[in-house]
């Protein structure tokens, strides 16, 4: 006599097998991640890793080492990521020291030659270049601890004494500069002056030009800030403080690196009166309010304040 059990025993076996498989994989012997790389870490851990790199950089001022460490995180735009994290750290009420360290590292990584071309024509086009020296990997050769790399090999060869080369080639940096964004500056009254500053270090950054810009491409009233060093290169990581009645906001230049490493902006609320200053000091720029511009066909749109801060030549 033959018992007809139908296909159910197959289904029962499948369910039992799946259950036992899941039990083994999830409870008895769950997967353990080992030998992972910093780039695979969760976003918040990567942020902490980045902050630690910046803190270590503040201590040792070894830009090549910091660059090598940052490379492990595989960030697409290192300087920009640092600047953004600095801003988020401040906005979220995080440690000002960490924000400062992040901004400093972003600033030092973005020190490559990034000329700003501002012609005198009322319809001039301001071409703002992004930093490229920031992402040119420095190449420590020897004399220092060999940092881990993305290769699967754990470093085993001690490096011995020699000089360390961390300066990127200026000619290469200049050759790689690629204008990323173009902004059209419409009538501002007077064109920005042509300046031939000399390179200085430590000189204060002060307001050099304040102009009202009518740009129909800007949908909202904004305060636009550009910071330059004495050589005329845009500099990122400059902390800007905006105050208004009952409010304050901090941000850093370089946060929108597609518009220039020294560029930052703040959207104004119509009717509010703002003052702006650099966190490192200097006279505040006051009485900044939203105002309208009028185009040729009579339509109106919001204009913006363009503030150029420059490091004085010594």
């Amino acid at each position: 006599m033959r018992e007809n059990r139908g296909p159910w025993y197959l289904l029962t076996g499948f369910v039992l097998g799946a259950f036992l498989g899941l039990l083994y994989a999830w409870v008895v012997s769950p997967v353990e991640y080992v030998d992972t790389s910093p780039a695979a870490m969760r976003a918040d851990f990567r942020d902490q890793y980045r902050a630690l790199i910046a803190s270590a950089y503040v201590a040792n001022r070894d830009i090549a080492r910091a660059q090598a460490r940052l490379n492990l995180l595989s960030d697409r735009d290192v300087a920009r990521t640092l600047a953004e994290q600095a801003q988020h750290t401040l906005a979220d009420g995080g440690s000002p020291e960490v924000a400062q360290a992040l901004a400093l590292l972003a600033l030092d990584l973005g020190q490559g030659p990034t000329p700003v071309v501002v012609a005198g024509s009322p319809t001039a086009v301001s071409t703002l270049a992004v930093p490229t020296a920031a992402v040119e990997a420095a190449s420590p050769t020897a004399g220092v601890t060999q940092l881990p790399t993305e290769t699967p090999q754990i470093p085993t060869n001690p490096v011995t004494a020699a000089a360390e080369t961390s300066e990127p080639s200026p000619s290469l940096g200049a050759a790689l500069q690629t204008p990323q964004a173009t902004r059209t500056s419409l009538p501002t009254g007077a064109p920005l002056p042509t300046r031939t500053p000399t390179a200085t270090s430590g000189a204060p950054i002060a307001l050099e030009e304040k102009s009202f810009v009518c740009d129909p491409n800007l949908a909202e009233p904004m305060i636009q800030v550009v910071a330059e060093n004495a050589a005329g290169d845009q500099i990122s990581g400059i902390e800007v403080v905006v105050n208004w009645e009952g409010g304050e906001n901090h941000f850093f230049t370089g946060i929108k690196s597609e518009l220039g490493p020294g560029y930052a902006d703040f959207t104004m609320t119509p009717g509010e009166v703002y003052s702006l200053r650099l966190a490192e000091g200097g006279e505040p720029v006051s009485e900044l309010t939203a105002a309208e511009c009028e185009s040729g066909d009579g339509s109106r749109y919001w204009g913006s304040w363009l503030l150029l801060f420059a490091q004085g030549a010594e």
Partner: protein
Amino acid sequence: MLYGWVVNPVKYVDTTPSSLRADYQADYVLMVAESYNQNRDLPLAARRLALLGESSPTEHVRQALIFGAQNGYADSDLELLSQLASDLQTWNPITGTGGS
């Protein structure tokens, strides 16, 4: 296996510092030591080291010291690690005293 290894191999995401490869972990500890050398904030250093796993902060530094000695870390870096290890050993996380 063709699908799992070639077509769509596993990608590790959202991992933690505790799963980092040994050389990355050692460099992480070195960064903590470098930062500590400047700010002398031992609780902060201990919090950062705690991300590396359940072992004590001192143990993490000890492991990094061993790794560094075996893999040619510069003497100055080994000194930083030694200093941090030494200060952690005398540090009381409850009272916050100790260190230098």
